């Protein structure tokens, strides 16, 4: 990937919804607005997602127990992540652990096709 292709790739992401995982386990989902050489990322209309707290998990487990006590206790419970709207944010590059792009299967196929023909992405 040369500098030109790098810019092209990043520009192709502008306006897309991306998920940025931070070092403190939170995930930020928003519209990709801007980035720079230090991989600082600006997201618009961002929602913050946080893994459920231990107490929430405990509560869920407890209520799952009461509900399913008649049957065999299921080993898996499902607890939603908590989310909230926080608007325009900048996630500094050094705090980013993972970046994901949200796309539909359709978009995915187009991108794959592009990758094959152009040799990037």
């Amino acid at each position: 990937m040369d500098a030109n292709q790098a810019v092209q790739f990043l520009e192709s992401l502008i306006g897309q919804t991306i998920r940025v995982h931070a070092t403190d386990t939170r995930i930020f989902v928003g519209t990709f607005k801007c980035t720079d050489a230090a991989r600082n990322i600006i997201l618009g209309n961002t929602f913050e997602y946080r893994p459920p707290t231990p107490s929430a998990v405990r509560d869920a487990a407890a209520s799952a127990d009461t509900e399913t006590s008649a049957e065999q206790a299921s080993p898996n419970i499902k607890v939603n992540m908590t989310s909230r709207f926080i608007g325009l944010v900048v996630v500094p590059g050094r705090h980013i652990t993972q970046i994901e792009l949200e796309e539909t299967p359709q978009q995915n196929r187009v991108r794959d096709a592009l990758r094959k023909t152009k040799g990037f992405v």
Partner: protein
Amino acid sequence: MFPNSGASAPTMRVTSQSVVPRDITDEFTEAASKLSTGQLVKDEYFTLFEAVGALEIMDSKMDSGFLGPNENHAQALEDDYDITRELAPEEVVGIMDGLLCHEMAWHMGHPLSQTLFTSLYLDRLLWPVPNTLDEARFTRGSADGRNEEPALVNLVLRAYCMALVKCCDYVHARVAAEYYYEEEDFVTQLYNRNLLSPFDLDPFLDLLDRAAAWIEEQQDGINEEVRAAIKLRIEFRRDLLLGLYQDIDVIQNRSSDNFRACLSRLSDLAQSASIGKPVPESFSWKVQRRLASTVPPRPMVNISQDDALAHLKRLCQDGIDLQEILDYRGPHNFKVAVWTMLSRKPQPSVYIRSLLQTLIVNNALVLGVVPVRDFLYDELAELVLPTSILLQANTDQTEMPSNPRFQIAQHMDGFVKRFSQPFVDTFRSACLNRCRIRRTVCHTLVDWDNLQMEAEDLDEQLRTLSDEPPLILSNGDSTYSYPFSSWAYHQKLNQFRLILQLGFELSIYSPEELPGMYWYLSHICSTHLGHLDRIRTFTVATAKRNLTALAGKKRDAVERHAVLQKSLRLLERLSTQVVAVDAFAISLHALYVLLDRHHILPTASSPQAYSSERLRYELRMKPFLPITLPELVPYDDYRREALLEGDSDGAVLERATKAITEARKAWETTLANGAFSPDQPTPTTPAIEEDWKKDVKDTMRACIGTSLAIESLKKGLAMRNTSKGSSPDGPSVDLRVDIPEVGSKARFHDWWAVPQISHNTLRSKT
């Protein structure tokens, strides 16, 4: 002025089911590393200016969700406080009072995130957003969700909290519907929560009633005094809830019972506050980590119980006194009532101001009954067009397009469309906070300048249609009344005066500017007086023409005569007020000129300052620069007039003394005339009249203060003349001048900066 549009943050993220996330970490990292330092890849519509507003994640000062390195994940988000725990009755009182303080802090303009939403009890009720009222419980989520034990918490405290939230809902709805300044007057942000707005009033009253009944039964369990305190709080909350629920229905039912009931309970509320035992653990700023918020984390706001009750007391009192403006008594009296009510110190809270805005005009009805068109016509009839055919023409009655009445009616329709909103806004703008009133009027002044020009065109067109007879002046020239532009000019001159007087109130002018600004005020007043005279001349001429018909004892002529006399009396009333302001301004101007001349006027700018008199004048005239009429006074003329160049000290003193005597007389007449024009049916308005009288009396005290200052100055100047060897250039007069600040006791009236003059030598001896 337009109502605020409710810009709200998206509440939920919408994603289609088929979205698949793809890990692009490596590609992204590689691509980013290829960028050179300082190179940005960005959305072409995204500006760096916006980027500055982005919250930096993982920065403790910016990121409300940031957890410190030593914070345990669970503790950081959730407090250890157990909401379902049993509470001592004293603690319930403490929590209720704590909530009330936070509620008032919110009314005062602090965001919910720093006030009420810090309560863990409210947090549990409101999040996740309950779908039914039943869901809003402290015990939600736990196995025994419907349990009402302990009743003190799950029945009594819950009822209080629920009703409190509903109170906030009514306040929020009213304020958000009107024109206010976000973060300046009020913060409407709800952080994606909901103040139980989908639910009706009745279930809340039921809850409160059940709670009150339960507490009544606990003779054995709870100490009598504490029981009474809890009961009082529940009853108080019920009254407040009903008072806020009434909202604009006050126009129909004219009841102030609820606010009166609240007010009567306030002293007991204050007394029994000491019984309460605060539970500070039940409030936590950490709630901010879970609120949908686009701002950095901020500390909790704590106001004292005394401040909260004082604010509440004013809210109730203003809510009661609001009754007095509800009866329509013509635009002039209405304006006096609205302006007097809103000039109370401290200014009525944002809820009352928003409610007033709605009462002033809602759905094109003034006070809920008078169509805006009639309101505007009443104003014109009061001032410039008594008995005029122009206001009687109606397209519904005349359908022949060639008929002049039809054409007049058409022109008038256009006029109403164009002028009614700006006119009503001159009333509504009084509901803004004081700084914003001045700022808004500075802007609307330009609009009114344009309106005046449009009105002039209209005047000319209508003159031919209505066959207005010209007025022949003594020099033989003929002139016409130009009623609409005259009226617009009158409005504009009112606004000029308001801008200047609010300038004094808001302490905008530095001491060295006072001579010039009081001169300018008197200049505007004398222009205004001349204009009122012009209007009067035409009304008198109309009255004269009517006299012949009157002699014939025609019935409509008698009616016309009454209307014309009423209008003349109103013009007289307005003139008296402007004369009073004018005379006072002339006197203060002369006084300040002398203080300046003898270098004893305090100055705000240092001698090395960049500011100069010319620059200051330019700055102060900025709002008036685009105005065509009255014409701007060129700086050189201003300087000559404002400094009274060429007049001796004696002459200037004489001027000040004479003017202040005249001012005192004029203010006495104003006071005797009363607040309202008696020509309109007058309901009793004791509270507003009291405020109005106090305002005039304060002005009269300021007049007396000015007389004293003039005397002291006279003595000081006389002493200097008798004492020998005073150097010609040094501070020759041995006087000390203080200008009391707005709000201090010695400042008798906000609009009149009266200097206090004392003897230096006498002072140093004591």
